[in-house]
């Protein structure tokens, strides 16, 4: 097995220490950072994402794989920056104002990072203005909003309105998700994309960024 496959395997097993060691080894052997990232780390995370979507692996499997990925990507980050490799796209992510639930949102972040997207995670209880201002400052492609409460999902409409008000509605894709959110709700509030799970959210986000 070559070292990239090994990295992918260990990542899928959530073995952070092994992933870190092998990424270090690959760097020392002169392999370029982009290859290690894409064919090692992201390849492994992509398999986890697919399996998660099909209920073949579960939340703890995803969390431990994501930890393993981070242990490797930390080593790669400075190299990627210095060699000018950029992410496939940029996503501003958060749980909407009034809502403190972060599990779904964190899964989305892991899946998106696992697809090679740069995710700016604003955390929980994020106001509509903060979503949009951050998107403007960072020139993001996507704003992705999560809500678990029926009482806070309405906040997503405010994000759409804030984007209109700021004059960036045409330039930004607004994604919505969370237990109470539906396709119909997405249409009602004039957001762009609804997905029902974290892995699909990452797939759709990649499509958006590629087509830009």
């Amino acid at each position: 097995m070559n070292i990239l496959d090994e990295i992918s395997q260990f990542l899928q097993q959530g073995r952070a220490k092994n992933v870190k060691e092998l990424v270090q080894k690959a760097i020392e052997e002169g392999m370029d950072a982009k290859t290690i990232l894409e064919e090692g780390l992201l390849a492994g995370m992509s398999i986890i994402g697919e399996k998660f979507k099909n209920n073949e692996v579960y939340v703890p499997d995803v969390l431990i794989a994501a930890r393993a990925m981070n242990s490797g990507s930390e080593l790669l980050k400075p190299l990627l920056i210095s060699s000018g490799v950029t992410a496939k796209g940029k996503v501003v992510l958060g749980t909407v104002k009034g809502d403190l639930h972060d599990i779904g949102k964190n899964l989305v972040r892991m899946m998106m990072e696992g697809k090679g997207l740069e995710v700016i995670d604003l955390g929980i209880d994020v106001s509509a203005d903060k979503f949009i201002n951050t998107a403007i400052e960072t020139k993001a492609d996507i704003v992705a909003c999560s809500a678990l409460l029926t009482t806070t999902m309405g906040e997503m409409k405010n994000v759409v309105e804030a984007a209109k008000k700021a004059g960036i509605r045409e330039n930004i894709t607004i994604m919505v998700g969370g237990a109470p959110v539906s396709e119909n709700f997405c249409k009602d509030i004039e957001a762009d994309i609804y997905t029902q799970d974290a892995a699909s959210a990452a797939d759709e986000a990649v499509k958006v960024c590629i087509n830009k």
Partner: protein
Amino acid sequence: MIIIGEKLNSTLKSVRPAMENYDAAFVQELAKKQYEAGANYIDLNAGMFYKDEPERLEWLVKTVQEAVDIPLSIDSPSPKALEKALRANTNSKPIINSITDEKERYNPILPLVTEFKTGVIALCMDDEGMPETVEDRFKIGARLIEKLTKAGVQPEDIYIDPMVRPIGTGSHYGIVAIETIRKVKTEYPEVHIACGLSNISFGIPVRKLMNQTFLVSAMTAGMDGAILDPLDKKLMSFLYATEALLGYDDFCMNYMTKFREGSLEV
């Protein structure tokens, strides 16, 4: 154990269509079944209907109380929906599910608790968010108990929800919930617990196994109330066995009755 039947919840995919179509027969049947299976309260949640939650919740109250005379647990964070549902309620003393120590939630919901003389489920969270440690959760729980009793609510009408978070997302979440229950029941023995049981198993396989095991552990720590599925025969069997083991069932008579009714399952 105080059992709050969780089935009439609009976020459940199996129930939502019936609520959407105002299927009274379906709703009443599910209420009756939970009552017969041993529920002490029936929880009613219409939160998925974000456009007309108050009217939907009111309809649920009216529909259920036509069929069963059992107190209701009115489940909404919205004061407007709660008030409409409480005005429609004619069954005995309901519970409001729920209040927190967040200003925007506490201030408008407290008057409903006192005006309608309801029980109230109080979540251990405040404007700082969801606390991670036993100490922080207890602190919020204790603060809520002090504030509510000062406002005239009887301690036995307060149900503390220790905030169960999924064990699959943090290895400490099981023990944190269990120890919060123990501390609340030690310091405030008259106050009840109302634990959202199935949150513990979100995102992991064989959820029922985790729910059953958590039920036993939490009851051992003093949990005397939970929001659960009373139609889950195995879960209820564990509940009866645990009650007997903890000394709440003289001569195991309730356990024996359940056995003779054919409702014990392993």
